[in-house]
């Protein structure tokens, strides 16, 4: 399938690709760790910080309920941040690499 003349090693060594790799790895794994840590705070909080979770803040609405609702907001927030960053930074860089690959002789 892959045309033999696409020089993958050369694309891999291209400065833009190295830059994309560096930025993307840092960004993705940071978001991943933040989201996982934030999620596991929920069962941990519900089990070991019950007094705090029971604190009523808005009529019968307590901290635990707000914290559970905040999980949705944080998940959506992470999705939004990632998608904006990918659209603005990663996609243009990938396009640039693809154009460079074309010049280097590979077929798109």
């Amino acid at each position, binding site marked *: 399938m892959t045309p033999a003349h696409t020089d993958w090693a050369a694309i891999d060594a291209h400065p833009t690709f190295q830059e994309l790799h560096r930025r993307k790895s840092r960004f993705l794994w940071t978001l991943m760790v933040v*989201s996982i840590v934030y999620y596991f705070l929920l069962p941990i909080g*519900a089990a070991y910080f*019950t007094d705090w979770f029971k604190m009523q803040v808005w009529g019968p609405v*307590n901290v635990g309920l707000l914290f559970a609702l905040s999980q949705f907001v944080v998940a959506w927030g992470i999705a939004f941040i990632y998608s904006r960053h990918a659209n603005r930074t990663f996609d243009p860089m990938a396009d640039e690499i693809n154009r460079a690959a074309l010049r280097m002789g590979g077929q798109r």
Partner: protein
Amino acid sequence: MTSHLAIRSAPALALAMLCSPAHAIFKGGAVPERFGWLAVVVFAAIIALTMYVTYLAAKRVKSTQQFYAAGRSVSGIQNGWAIAGDYLSAASFLGIAGLISLYGYDGFMYSVGWLVAYITVLLVIAEPCRNIGKYTLGDILAFRNNHKTAKTMAAISTITVSIFYLTAQMVGGGVLVKTLIGIDYEVSVMVVGVLMLAYVVFGGMVATTWVQIIKAVLLVIASILLVMFTWAPYGFSLPGFLEAVVGDAKVQAQVAKLLGDAASNMSATELGQRFLEPGLFLKSPVDQISLGMALVLGTAGMPHILMRFFTVPTAQQARISVIWAMAIIGGFYVLTLFIGNGAALNVGAATIAGMDKGGNMAGPLLAQYIGGGPESMLGNLFLAFVAAVAFATIVAVVAGLVLASASAMSHDIWVGVIKGEHATPEEEVRAARICSVIVGALAIVIGILAKGQNVAHLVALAFAVAASSNLPCVLLTLYWKRCNTGGIVLGMLVGAFSAIALVMVSPNMTYPKLEREKAQKVIDAGTAKIATLEVVVAQAADDAAREKAQAAVTKAQAEVKAAQDTYAKYEGQETSLVGLEAPLISLKNPGLYSIPLGFLCVILGSLFWRDRKASEMWEELYVRQNTGLHAEKAAAH
């Protein structure tokens, strides 16, 4: 083409099975018998709509790309709805609302992990898989590993995970349809099976996608309507609505029942507020974390979810589809908070649990209440609508699972391994259809054989296996240069085997000796209670007191009788399925052990194995997954 003839008879067959002796089969469900015709009308309308879509799809599905990946012409938004339709099974639609209605806060907390799971899918799985994959999990794993080995492992794992999930869906669905509208278990399993087969065999991924979209739209409409009607009387105020919930006598009684002795010195207000606090259902935080790990890492390893990303034209569209799926799935779970609490407030936990112990009837009964109650026509129309949506849910999820395992059989095993990638597109589409029929028939047979079995833990097991075997392999082959065939084989086998083995020795299994001991305790306590109560009956001052005590005696006798039946059922058995008298581990969810083990085995296997292809292909894989260079294109129109 013969398939067009057959497709016209498939809906007729399904409808005939539904309406055969008029609506006499709708007996003993939540819909009263005299309103059975309403259920027939609503079900027929939804089935007819999906069948029409399948008919249109069948004309288009001629190539492998159409059959497996809907020609890669599904838009990001459409795919987002389809993912939601594929993912929101009856367990989330009815089960989570039910858990909230019975246990309050814990039910809602349980729902969170199902959404957070999509962050993994979005960040590290969806786009790379779209860029390097073709039709199946096997294609991703075979990219830089030994072709036949990787495809075989991926196919085995896909089929294992799908069969676990499928069994839970078929059995759960059969029970659900029976409780809702009273159709016999076997009939409903057959109807689900026949319909799903019609969608998959004739319409492939095109029809499956549209059935999932239709189902997701119906599900969201039904949920929004339920929430509007439930919340409106409280002026759409969150504290106002919850004030009513915690102030309700039925809710307070349910909390008192759950807490038992601990509730004796609590005031009514305290009891009500307790409903919104953690700890009524989920007692073990470690089990919670273990399940959370399986969800957050397992969803991204689910073959039927992965497969959805091959249906969009580009990685950007794959990204958009996860964003939409997250909006729909998350929004749905937030609505569930109101549906569950609304059911606890308006219907009451006792009534809900009376129809189904797991609480699955919470949403449907709330719909019936909103329309005017069990005696009203509107109430039963609403109930029939929710029941039909639940039915569509089961069919749509099952269709996605069958398509995923049939693709693994035909594309990975038959074409990839047996034919050495030498099959014409016509041969492959035919093979895929034959495999769909095999898997579908298997699903029906398993569904009927597993009648009455407790299959609830199979869903969690499917996620645990996916998280312990598929995900470590996919993740490391995509992101770790040294990963190779040795790691894939070891990781797949040990990950899947350890998850399954841990469940076999966990408290999920039935232990006859422990069951007998539990039953004996109930018998002893009940007998003692009857003795005291009989004294009360004898010494009662007036008729009212005597009647009350007599009623308590009758209730206690029934409890003792049930316990004696349980005791008799396990008489003569000493050990569980794997020969244990008691569980070896206390965890119900194996993820905490099996997921790290799966990752470790991929790493160790890769380090101890030499595979030149894997390291030579690394640069190509890494460039391609990041840039989409040479990614599979959409079908030309």
